[in-house]
C-alpha cells in the first residue's frame, strides 16, 4: 500500500530522514515512533504530499508520487485522511466541520446530512452536532477531527500525535476508535512518541531515530 525506498530528506543542512526503506501493507495498522524531532511528522507529510523527498522513491497505492501533478494533489489527498495533534477544527459547528470533507468532494446535501450523523454516532458525538469546537473537551475535539478524516472513507488514515494533548483514558478511547476504523479495512499509520499506546498490541512499529528507521513489533 505504502512503500518508501531509500528516501532521504534534508532541511537546510540538517538531514532529517536518511535512506528510509519500509513498506506498510493494505489494511495494516502501524505505528511510527521516536523522540521529538526524529522526523515522524515529516514522514507523514510525505505521504500526504505536503513535503517531497530530496531523493528515493515513494509509492502510494502503486502510484509513484513523482507521477502526481500539482493539479492532482487535491484529488490524491482525498484518498488519505489526516488527524492532527492540534485538531485543526474550524470555527464552525461540529456538523459543519465534519461535513466539510464531503462538501469539498461535492456530495449531495441529503447524503452529507446522513453521512455526518452516521460518522458522529461512530465517535459518540451525535448529540454534539450543533456545538462549536471551543465548547468541547480535548478528547471530543479530537473525535471530531477523526470523524472529519474518515467521513470520506479514505484508504489510508494518518494520525500525527493525535493523543499528545490528551489524558491517558481519553487517549485510550481514541486508540479504540482507530482499531474500529482499522477493522473496517482502513490502513492506519499512527505517529506517536508514547510507547504505552502500542505496547502489547502486536501491531508493527517503526522506530525513527537520527533519520534512520528500524522495524519492531509492539509487544
Amino acid at each position, binding site marked *: 500500500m505504502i512503500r518508501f525506498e531509500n528516501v532521504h530528506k534534508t532541511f537546510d543542512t540538517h538531514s532529517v530522514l536518511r535512506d528510509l526503506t519500509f513498506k506498510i501493507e493494505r489494511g495494516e495498522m502501524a505505528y511510527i515512533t521516536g523522540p521529538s524531532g526524529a522526523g515522524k511528522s515529516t514522514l507523514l507529510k510525505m505521504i*500526504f*504530499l*505536503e513535503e517531497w523527498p530530496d531523493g528515493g522513491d515513494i509509492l502510494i497505492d502503486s502510484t509513484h508520487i513523482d507521477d502526481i501533478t*500539482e493539479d492532482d*494533489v*487535491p*484529488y*490524491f*489527498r*482525498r484518498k488519505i485522511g*489526516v488527524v492532527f495533534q492540534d485538531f*485543526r477544527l*474550524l470555527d464552525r459547528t461540529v456538523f459543519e466541520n465534519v461535513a*466539510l*470533507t464531503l*462538501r*469539498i*468532494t461535492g456530495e449531495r446535501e441529503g447524503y452529507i446530512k446522513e453521512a455526518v450523523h452516521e460518522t458522529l454516532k461512530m465517535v459518540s458525538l451525535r448529540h454534539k452536532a450543533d456545538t462549536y469546537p471551543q465548547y468541547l473537551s480535548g478528547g471530543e475535539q479530537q473525535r471530531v477531527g477523526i470523524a*472529519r478524516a474518515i467521513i*470520506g472513507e479514505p484508504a489510508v488514515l494518518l494520525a500525527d500525535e493525535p493523543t499528545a494533548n490528551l489524558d491517558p483514558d481519553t487517549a485510550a478511547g481514541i486508540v479504540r476508535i482507530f482499531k474500529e476504523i482499522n477493522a473496517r479495512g482502513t490502513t492506519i499509520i499512527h505517529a506517536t512518541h508514547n510507547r504505552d499506546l502500542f505496547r502489547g498490541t502486536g501491531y508493527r512499529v517503526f522506530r525513527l531515530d537520527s533519520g534512520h528507521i528500524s522495524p519492531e513489533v509492539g509487544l
Partner: protein
Amino acid sequence: MSYALNTALSGLWREKWVNFLCTFTIAAGLLIMSMALLAVFNVQKVMERMPDRFSVLVFLKDGMNERPDTLIKKMQALEGIKSVRFISSQEALKELRAALEDPDLVLGELEGNPLPSSLELRLERDAVADQSVRLIAQKAGEFEEVDDVHYASSVLRVIQSLQLYAKGAGLAIIIILGIAVLFVSYSTVKLLLYRKQDEIDTLKYLGATKGFIRAPFLLEGAFMGTLAGMMALAGLGLLYATMHMEIGSSLPILAAMEAPLALLPALPAAGLAIGVTGAHMAVGKIRF
C-alpha cells in the same frame, strides 16, 4: 457554489467592521474617481458645443447701415466660415436693450445709436481653435470696410487648456485612485487571508481544489466591490442633486453639469471588477 456563498456571507458578517471600512474606502475612491470622470465628461461636452455657439464679431466702419452683400460674400469665401449674419446698428441696439435688465438706466442718457453695424461669423467645427480663429480674425480685419474684429480669445484659450489639462488631470486621478482602490481591496483580502491561513491549510489537507479555496474570497471581494460601487453611485446622485438644487442657483455652471447615464451600471460594475481583482491578487497562487 452554495458552500462558497455561505462561507463568503458568514465571513463578511464575522468581520463586518473591517469589511465595512474597506467597502467604505473603496466607495470613497470610486466616488472621487467618478467625480473626476464627470469633470472630464463635462469639459468635453462644453468643447463639443462650443463651435455652434462661438462666433467672431466683425465691426464695420461708421455709417455702414446697409447690408454689405459683397463683403458678406468675401467673408463667406474665407476658409472655416459656416455662415455670416449682418447685424445693423439698429438691430444691435435692439439686441442690447433686450439683453439688459434695465436698459433705460444704461442707455437712457445716450443720444442716437453709438453701436456700429457688424457681421457675425459662425465657424465650421474644425475652425474653432485658437490658431485658425486668429487667422480668420486677421483676414477679416484686412477688408477696408472693417473697423475692428472681436472674439472671445481668452475664453477660447481657457477652454482649450481646460480640455487639455482637465482631461490629463482627470485621467491621472482616475488611474491613481483606481490603483489605490485596488490596493485597499487587495490589502483587506490579504489581511483576511493571513487570519484564515490555518483554515486554508486545513482545506488543502482535506483535498480542496484551488477553485474551492479561492471562491469564497472572490465572492467576498465581488460583494464588497459591488456594494462600494452602489454606495459611490448613491453618493454621486446625492452630490448631483445638491449641485442642481442648492448650489446651482448661485453657480449656474454647476447646474449645467451633466452626468452620463452609463455611470448607473458602470459604477457597480467597476466596484465589482476592483473587488474581484483585488481578491484574486491577494489570494495569489495557491501551492500544494
